[in-house]
């Protein structure tokens, strides 16, 4: 064999990954081979691959179970690490870890987005001294992720398990996309849980995609297939710049499609009646541009990327259709992370407010709703991107604050004519302030008295009074909201401010 033939022969073997039986069992689970995943992800293949020959003296460990390199997504170079689960279940040896570290360091140097295609059983216990505890051990992967966070977008596509320490890769990404049925995250497997704490539980219950995307919030996006996961990631990245120094690319604007009902038709006048906030969002963004994050988690608050006249915008909106749009611990967490994500990558923020306040009661107090709420306020307060607050209907109590109320330096606070801004709603306020008087009145006079007091209260918090006091910057016709946003965001784009000088805040986490 000539040396060229030897090279080609070695490459052919390595490119095939692990043994046929593992390819077959993956195929049965609907899992694609790692190189196929990358082919779908990149515009035209991976242009640079590094350490292809890692561990090549061991025939059983082609590329040491991970592919790393650079290719283009939406015509933008991105760095990738992708586990090969046909090689020792995608487990990490010394060279696997070193390869991951190097591609992260490349992403850091070149300030390129970092994509993690995760499908790994975790550490190779037999190699633990070489890959676990040291300076270039697996812990360094997380250290690098934390360093990269906010510098470049970090995306995790979870195709299989992400076990024990490995579960921190998704945890430190900006977004985790999970394939239903195959993706899982857990610190201890069900088998370990049974042995160590006596709990009997299935893998799906313990750390399945549905659980993480709807209950724990560790997952962000639930998809059915690997192709769907990859397409979501490609679309998601199109809203982002390559790094924190640049702004997102504008795309061709798409108009709002024609709707039978206008915004004024869909927002009920009765503050207590629910409506579907998605209907309002659809009426202000470019058609088909909504890329929702954490759709199934804390659905009382909607977070997602969208485009208005071709420009990226991050939307945080209360959803009156779910739990009355009240803010809970999980909704506050969800908002805090999304706000940080957008601010890190220069994506302007739009708050659509219709909030009765933060939830009250023993349950949420015990969960620490005050510190969770503080987290949301803190994240929202610190942003330096353009920030517009729109009071759609009510904005009561700390709900007004959390949704970027006037005190938190929005570039403007707009209100619909039916907006109500107050410490609390008329019903609650009259009950609280007039409780003694109501109790003293004869039964038959109470309703009329309450009604009269509520009317007085509503007059007191009338939107034009707030406009007159310049609490809000404009009262607008709801049906002109999109144009208003276009005008304002295009001007506020020039914003260039620093929040404050310090090392970092002491966050209320």
């Amino acid at each position, binding site marked *: 064999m000539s040396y060229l033939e030897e090279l080609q022969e070695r490459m052919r073997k390595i490119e095939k990954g692990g043994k046929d039986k593992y390819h077959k069992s993956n195929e049965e689970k609907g899992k694609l081979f790692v190189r196929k995943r990358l082919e779908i992800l990149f515009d035209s293949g991976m242009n640079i691959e590094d350490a292809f020959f890692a561990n090549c003296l061991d025939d059983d460990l082609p590329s040491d179970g991970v592919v790393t390199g650079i290719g283009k997504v939406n015509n933008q170079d991105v760095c990738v690490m992708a586990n090969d689960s046909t090689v020792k279940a995608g487990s990490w040896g010394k060279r696997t870890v070193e390869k991951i570290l190097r591609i992260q360091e490349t992403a850091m140097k070149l300030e390129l987005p970092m994509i993690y295609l995760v499908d790994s059983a975790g550490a190779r216990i037999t190699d633990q001294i070489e890959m676990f505890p040291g300076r270039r051990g697996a812990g360094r992967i997380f250290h690098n992720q934390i360093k990269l966070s906010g510098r470049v977008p970090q995306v995790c596509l979870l195709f299989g398990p992400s076990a024990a320490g490995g579960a921190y890769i998704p945890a430190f990404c900006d977004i985790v996309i999970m394939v239903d049925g195959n993706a899982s995250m857990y610190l201890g497997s069900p088998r370990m849980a049974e042995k160590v704490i006596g709990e009997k539980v299935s893998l799906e219950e313990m750390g399945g995609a549905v659980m993480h995307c709807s209950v724990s919030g560790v997952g962000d996006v639930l998809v059915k297939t690997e192709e769907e996961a990859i397409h979501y990631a490609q679309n998601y990245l199109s809203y982002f710049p390559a790094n924190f120094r640049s702004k997102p690319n504008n795309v061709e604007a798409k108009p709002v499609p024609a709707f039978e009902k206008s915004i004024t038709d869909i927002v009920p006048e009765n503050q*207590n*009646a*629910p409506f579907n906030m998605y209907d309002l969002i659809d009426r202000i963004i470019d058609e088909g541009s909504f890329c929702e994050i954490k759709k199934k988690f804390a659905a009382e608050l909607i977070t997602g990327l969208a485009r208005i006249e071709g420009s990226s915008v991050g939307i945080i909106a209360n959803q*009156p*259709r*779910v*739990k*009355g*749009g*009240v803010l*809970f611990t999980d909704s506050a967490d969800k908002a805090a992370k999304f706000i940080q994500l957008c601010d890190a990558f220069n994506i302007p923020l739009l708050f659509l407010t219709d909030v*009765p*306040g933060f*939830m*009250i*009661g023993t*349950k949420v107090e015990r969960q620490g709703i005050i510190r969770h709420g503080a987290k949301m306020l803190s994240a929202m307060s610190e942003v330096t991107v353009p920030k517009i607050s729109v009071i759609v209907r009510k904005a009561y109590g700390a709900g007004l604050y959390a949704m970027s109320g006037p005190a938190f330096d929005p570039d403007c606070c707009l209100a619909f004519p039916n907006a109500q801004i107050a410490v609390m*709603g008329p*019903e*609650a306020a009259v009950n609280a302030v007039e409780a003694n008087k109501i109790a003293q009145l004869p039964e038959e006079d109470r309703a009329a008295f309450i009604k009269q007091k509520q009317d007085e209260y509503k007059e007191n918090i009338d939107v034009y009074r707030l406009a007159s006091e310049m609490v809000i910057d404009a009262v607008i016709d709801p049906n002109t909201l999109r144009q208003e946003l276009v005008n304002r965001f295009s001007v506020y784009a020039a914003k260039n401010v620093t929040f404050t000088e310090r090392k970092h805040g002491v966050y209320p986490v």
Partner: protein
Amino acid sequence: MQEVKASMAGNVWKIVVAVGEQVEEGQDIVILESMKMEIPIAAEASGVVKELKVAEGDFVNDEDVLAVIE
């Protein structure tokens, strides 16, 4: 069988279906009143209402079963 559960603490304001009634996925079963808001609680799957576990005016906690659908 599907249990329709309260999504948050509140009072049962209106029960909008009757036992024996055929309901569709996404159809409102009960409307709670909480934080001065109407909170519709919908069926997660289609079926027939087998049992109503609450009456109008009852206080319910997060996760309490409101109705059973078969």
